[in-house]
């Protein structure tokens, strides 16, 4: 094992190399590009024995990954924002085809207005695609998650593609020290990919992605739904196994910070969990029993784990870095749905913050916690509040 200072993007590339990925098909887009540049370097130097297909679009990147995975190879791509939307048809195809592709999504806002900065609307727009969606907080977790993603994807109880989501710039371009596992350790955790169990085997002809009439289509979709349920267990098992190997565990589907006796918690996903944790430390020093619930997986959505974690809490602040106009925000809605059947329903207030890369500070999180506790005490409806909006919500009609 060695310890290096690397960026989030380098951590993805290193994870891909350690996972002995066999086919990479990718197209450049900011802030993802550094990942595929690094992988190209590994391939050119002979450090990674893979075929690198320099495709002419993101749509073809995912199509080529689908072809490669159908051909039995371990396949990887990375993208962001417009690139993810452009390949969206193929993203859904990979899910439906049950191909264990791994894709790094360096999350970035959607245009217009044009923005290269971070928010989560790109990845979350693909939430019904049949992809497992994992979210990292640190450079170390990006590296570990990339390797773990292949184990989850290729598990025969899962066989679903996996997205590793990391915040654009905030994580992709942040340099942090990370422990780099030995290749032999990764090999024991993730053996080299065999062309199995379903592939375009020339000795056993089969037809894939055929047409299904109304009498068979639903069963295919049900199998996909079941596989996603299985992923809940497999993600946790893989996290535990990784911990036995490296000593690092991230808590499976949900990472809880100071939640044991918490009366209020901030719930979010992504790198800004670090700022939320800092806010919680400050609040704790002032006597507020606060915690952070970080979703490591948004698909499968950790309904049961979430109910267990928030049991006994008074209030939850769900902070979305995304927007669903008319809803108005994604995690807020999903968390509320997940907790609807709780015996003692926790108060859930929503916040929209950090869209298009707007900075969100520990101070903002402290205000979010206070606003949530105030809403809880006053018995107000837990509607969604915008954070850091210039002129405030009333100033924008």
């Amino acid at each position: 094992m060695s310890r290096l200072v690397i960026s989030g993007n380098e951590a993805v590339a290193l994870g891909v190399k350690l996972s002995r990925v066999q086919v990479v098909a990718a197209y450049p887009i900011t802030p993802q590009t550094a990942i595929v540049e690094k992988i190209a370097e590994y391939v050119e130097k002979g450090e990674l024995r893979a075929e690198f297909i320099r495709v002419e679009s993101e749509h073809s990147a995912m199509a080529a990954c689908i072809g490669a995975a159908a051909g039995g190879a371990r396949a990887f791509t990375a993208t962001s924002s417009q690139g993810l939307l452009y390949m969206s048809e193929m993203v859904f195809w990979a899910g439906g085809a049950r191909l264990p592709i791994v894709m790094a999504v360096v999350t970035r806002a959607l245009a217009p207005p044009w923005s290269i900065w971070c928010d989560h609307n790109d990845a979350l727009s693909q939430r019904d695609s049949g992809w497992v969606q994992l979210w990292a907080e640190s450079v170390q977790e990006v590296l570990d998650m990339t390797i773990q993603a292949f184990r989850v994807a290729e598990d025969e109880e899962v066989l679903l593609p996996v997205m590793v989501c990391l915040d654009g710039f905030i994580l992709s371009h942040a340099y942090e020290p990370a422990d780099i596992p030995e290749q032999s350790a990764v090999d024991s955790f993730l053996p080299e990919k065999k062309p199995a169990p379903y592939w375009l085997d020339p000795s056993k002809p089969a037809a894939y992605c055929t047409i299904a009439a109304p009498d068979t289509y639903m069963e295919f979709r049900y199998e996909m739904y079941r596989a996603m349920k299985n992923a809940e267990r497999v993600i946790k098992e893989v996290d535990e196994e990784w911990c036995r190997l490296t000593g690092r565990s991230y808590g499976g589907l949900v990472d809880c910070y100071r939640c044991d006796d918490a009366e209020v918690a901030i719930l979010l996903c992504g790198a800004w969990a670090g700022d939320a944790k800092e806010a919680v430390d400050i609040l704790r020093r002032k006597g507020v029993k606060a915690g952070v619930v970080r979703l490591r997986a948004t698909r499968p959505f950790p309904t049961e784990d979430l109910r267990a974690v928030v049991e006994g809490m008074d209030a939850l602040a769900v902070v979305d870095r995304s927007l669903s106009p008319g809803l108005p925000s994604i995690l807020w809605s999903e968390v509320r749905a997940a907790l609807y059947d709780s015996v003692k329903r926790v108060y859930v207030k929503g916040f929209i913050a950090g869209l298009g890369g707007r900075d969100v500070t520990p101070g903002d999180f402290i205000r979010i916690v206070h606003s949530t506790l105030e809403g809880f005490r006053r018995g107000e409806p837990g509607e969604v509040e915008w954070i850091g909006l210039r002129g405030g919500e009333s100033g924008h009609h």
Partner: protein
Amino acid sequence: MAGQVKSIKEIPREELFAPGHRLCAGCGIPPLVRIVLKAVPGPKVVVTATGCLEVATTIFPYTSWRVPWVHNAFENAAATASGIEAAFRILEKKRGIKRPKIIVFGGDGGTFDIGLQALSGALERGHDMIYICYDNEAYMNTGIQRSGATPRGAATTTSPAGRVIPGKMERKKDLLGIAIAHGVRYAATLNPAFPVDMYNKIVKAASVEGPTVLHYLCPCPTGWRFDPSRTIEVARLAVMTRMWPLYEYEDGRYRITVMVKKPRPIEDYIKLQGRFRHLLQPENKWVLDQLRRDVEEFWERLVRLASASE
């Protein structure tokens, strides 16, 4: 060249494309697929773009394909094939698995229009694949809409022959010209009325390492509106009127493989098909004349290219 035949009797009898599929009576696709699977030697994997061939041959749980087959939407068969080819390169290196030939079938919509970018990318990158466009000259699977491959004057549901606009007003794209501009080593046109010519061209394409493009005239009795028993006759007339020249491009040289010294008038081809029938009315003579000019111009260009290659 090894593997080539002189008569249809020498074409292998083994069928890798099973009967029982749901393609229309008289459809031009099965003669193509049967001959391709006979002519490409050794292991092969087939990619099929969304279209008539895909929907009619793989209705779950049935399949007509006795080779590994995959469908990955409409516009990206060539990109999908790129990934499959890369996977088999790795399997060959790491596990000694013999690399199959990747064969792609796309219709004219999936090739000329929505799939052109993915095809261009795959040709430029040089993946080892045979890309075959079965060109029935419109979006037939969705019910006969005009494509970039529809010939001038043809009526489709989105270019109906009306009093103001008598059918499609634009010229057909030159697909092989586009493919050849990418630097492919082999490209050729195919026609079901000339099975020996077709078989031998596929054998040549299969022998090339790298991308090759084959362009097949695929008569469609449903969309072109002719009697399904006359598919081969219609196809032959396309060649004899020079509407569908049979030629090949090989390493920089063009060769007309079926020389048509005395062409039949294009009316002989047109009058058999409902899609062109309005062109025979006197008020539409100008469209017919334009179509004739398209055909003459292309043939003359081909003759020049072929004679320059001698």
